[in-house]
């Protein structure tokens, strides 16, 4: 099963209505919206997380339905992966 981890050394900071993120690995800086920032904050660098787990975690934090969140976050993964802020990772079977 595939999950995601936060890339090492990612820094984030609020900037008005948006966010900035810096990757120590790529040296790149990116501007993020609230949804992408929420994904980064919910991920860990040493604990692979599936999309379902992440949606459940965020849903519990924000009081919304996990299914609705999965749709909202659908567009976040690709840019976060391409930006090097998030990485694919195998999730160990329970």
């Amino acid at each position, binding site marked *: 099963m595939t999950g995601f981890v936060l890339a090492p*050394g990612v*820094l984030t*900071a*609020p*900037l*008005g*209505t*948006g966010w*900035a993120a*810096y990757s*120590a690995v790529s*040296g790149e*800086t990116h*501007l993020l919206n609230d949804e992408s920032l929420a994904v980064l904050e919910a991920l860990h660098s040493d604990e692979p997380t599936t999309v379902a787990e992440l949606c459940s975690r965020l849903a519990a934090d924000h009081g919304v339905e996990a299914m609705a969140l999965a749709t909202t976050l659908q567009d976040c993964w690709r840019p976060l992966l391409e930006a090097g802020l998030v990485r694919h990772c195998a999730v160990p079977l329970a």
Partner: protein
Amino acid sequence: MNPVAALEPMRALSQVGTAAIQQALLGPGLLLDVGLAILRVQGDAPGLAQQLHAVYRNFPFRAAPGWADVHLHIHRRRGLRRWVRPQVVFRCDSEEPFDPFPADTALPLMEWGANYLIGRRFNDSLLFHAGVVERDGHALLMPALPGSGKSTLTAALSLRGWRMLSDEFGALDLQRGSFRPVLKPVALKNTSIDVIRAFAPEAELGPEFPRTRKGRVAHLAPSAPAVAARQNHAWPGAVVLPRWRPDGGTRLEPVPPQLVFPTLAFNAFNYAVLGAEGFRAAVSLAQTCPTWQLEYSDLHDAITHLEREWPAVVLQATARRAADSGHEGAMP
């Protein structure tokens, strides 16, 4: 006090003859302390002594051997080029990073070379591509793309009582969190030269270079008080993104931090080199400094708009620093 400044002789370049400058250029080198760096200039480029005499006129004359951070050599090209369309070359550490310039443009070549080297080397500061002036101990940072009127506005403010720190580098000292002067002549280009001449007929402009790669160029000499204060830092105050619009009125519009940050960070010379430190510093400035986009066509009106905002900027910055450090009024 800076130990180098303490040892400086009293004579400025304007007070020594061009022969003494020429002798220094041909000998141990002319040392120019611009605040962030000490430049050593050497070479036999024709006219360079007279040009330096004009635009570094208020800088102390130092020709003795001593420490320099940047070594600039501006030499006549040898061989046939000594007589046929003569050229000058810029050399530093045995490298020639640029193509030769026509021999009558030694000063623009030297200034270009000095900026190139400063932008590549001084990585203890985050070097924004910006003009910086100071009033009441606080810096007004003006980052902008070429052609936006950054140099014109920097020059005009410096001619209206603001202390110039730099026309080219907003050098944010990462340890102290304050701006350091990189005080060099302001390179005015094309119509900016006429605008500044009309704005301040008393402005000390050097010789005009009609055919450089950037068009017509003339340099504004930094004032004597700005030179005397070139080791004095300034706390971050505000950011202005200037935009010259020849036919419009003056507009000062607030800019939100999410738009300020990329303008600051992605126009800095060494943001990528500094990594996380640069990110934190640029974020901090974008979060804390009030920022405006300034569209202007009339310099008097633009300065009036800025000066109207400035007392509130200083109050806000002072309160912020007091909250951060637990004491008020510390000098940078």
